[in-house]
């Protein structure tokens, strides 16, 4: 059986074709320009992951929102749940860049961190 993927690991977006045998094991990978692409399709077949980026409410800051992201990709089926969870929390300003917002989010072992700072009024 053949399965086709578009690699999302860099903007080039290579079209990668994988051939699977009867047990679902990969016998051939073609179309990738680099190793990352091969790793990507292997992961898509066994443990598909995505980086989640979203915002979290901040109170007492110069801005109402802080942009956050999962430091590493999390299992794809956890993305919507995590986004919903992050809609329910509010941080207090100031928030610093890289600050951990949720440790070990949804048991994935991966932290959610701020991708930019939010100041409190008057500087820090």
């Amino acid at each position, binding site marked *: 059986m053949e399965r086709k993927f578009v690699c999302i690991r860099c903007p080039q977006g290579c079209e990668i074709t994988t051939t699977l045998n009867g047990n679902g094991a990969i016998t051939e990978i073609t179309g990738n320009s680099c190793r990352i692409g091969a790793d990507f399709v292997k992961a898509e077949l066994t443990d598909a992951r995505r980086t989640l980026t979203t915002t979290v409410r901040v109170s007492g800051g110069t801005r109402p929102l802080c942009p956050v992201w999962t430091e590493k990709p999390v299992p794809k089926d956890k993305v919507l749940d995590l986004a919903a969870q992050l809609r329910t929390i509010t941080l207090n300003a100031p928030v610093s860049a890289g600050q951990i917002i949720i440790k070990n989010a949804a048991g994935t072992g991966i932290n959610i961190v701020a*991708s930019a700072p939010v100041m409190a009024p008057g500087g820090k």
Partner: protein
Amino acid sequence: MNTTYDVVVVGAGPAGLAAAIEAKKTGAGDVLIIERNDEPGGILPQCIHNGFGSVIFKKDLPGPAYAYNFIEEAKTLGIEIVLDTMVLNITPDKKITAANSRDGFLEFEAGAIILAMGCRERTRANIRVPGDRPAGVFTAGTVQRLVNIEGLMPGKNFVILGSGDIGMIMARRLTLEGANVLKVVELMPCLTGLRRNYVQCLQDFNIPLSLSTTIKRIIGKKRVEAVETVKVDESLNPISGTQETIACDSLLLSVGLIPENELSKKAGVILDPLTGGPAVDENMATNINGIYAAGNVVTIYDLVDYVSKAGMIAGTNAALYTMGKSSSPKYYRLIPGDGVRSVVPQRINTSNIALKSSSTEILIELRVLHEFDSKVFIDIMDGDKVLYSHMEKYARPAEMITLRVDTSKLAGATGDLTVVVSSK
């Protein structure tokens, strides 16, 4: 704030920040960035998704994190950034007028100016969507700002017109914030954004995409109530009987970006009609001595990393100009030939390619006219002679191609050069 600066940069986006940093590092004395927004970073603070930095940082960063690195570096170098200030006019002799609500009218004189104003979005007026005029029609970038910066959700049920990257990224974003994205419709028979965004923004969330489809009519008195879509044929004419009405409260337009060049024109800078931005040489110099340009103001880039790189080149050369270290140039033009829509830079200094021994790398950004499904060759020609050839596995109008050309390859050129794409 002084009234004279060695280098003044207009716009504190990634292009402007990189330009100011390099100008300072090259040896320019006082460097000022003027920014109309209330924070530096350009559009990056609202681009909270990852996908930035793969070339420069070899990392996959969110937009705000990418910008943060440059903002901190600019601060450390003592570059002055004046916010909430709009540049109103630039003259060919490099006088700048600006205004803000604190100081009122401001005037500056600059040794060199770098234009880094970015781009603006095409609107409903630019593409003429017929129908009622209700509330609920937005450009994708406006909604991105509302959702990611202001914390406002402008609707519940969205239809998106245009499969550009901003549209697809907003489809995912709105879904993550709990809204419904009913469909993305695209006039052209192919995706206009990157395919990775189709996969991770639409496919991952089961958001349907209809190609060769457009919005025929917007329906609704006060607020959008529905849109009527229609399929189009190969010549983009509507096919009757294919109408479909989709009930929704919001329509997002992601129908392209236009370089922002009102100021450039006032300064006497000549624009290239193919890119909509200043025609520049490989140093990012415009036709006006001492005025440079970089980033989306020059041409719409796919990748911020190349925007920053262009900014660095502009910054270095603007600083050299103020230090009297640039001579009056002679050029060969770089002309888009068969299969090529646009090329930046539009001209190359002959002195830069005269010597085989002095090799420097120049970046050439081009877009093709139509889709090439298989292997293509991009050749730089001097008459019939191929000076440089580069192979790509395929080429698509939506994806900018960046050539890193060693100038020694172009040595011996005898006149204007043509860039052509062919499948040979």
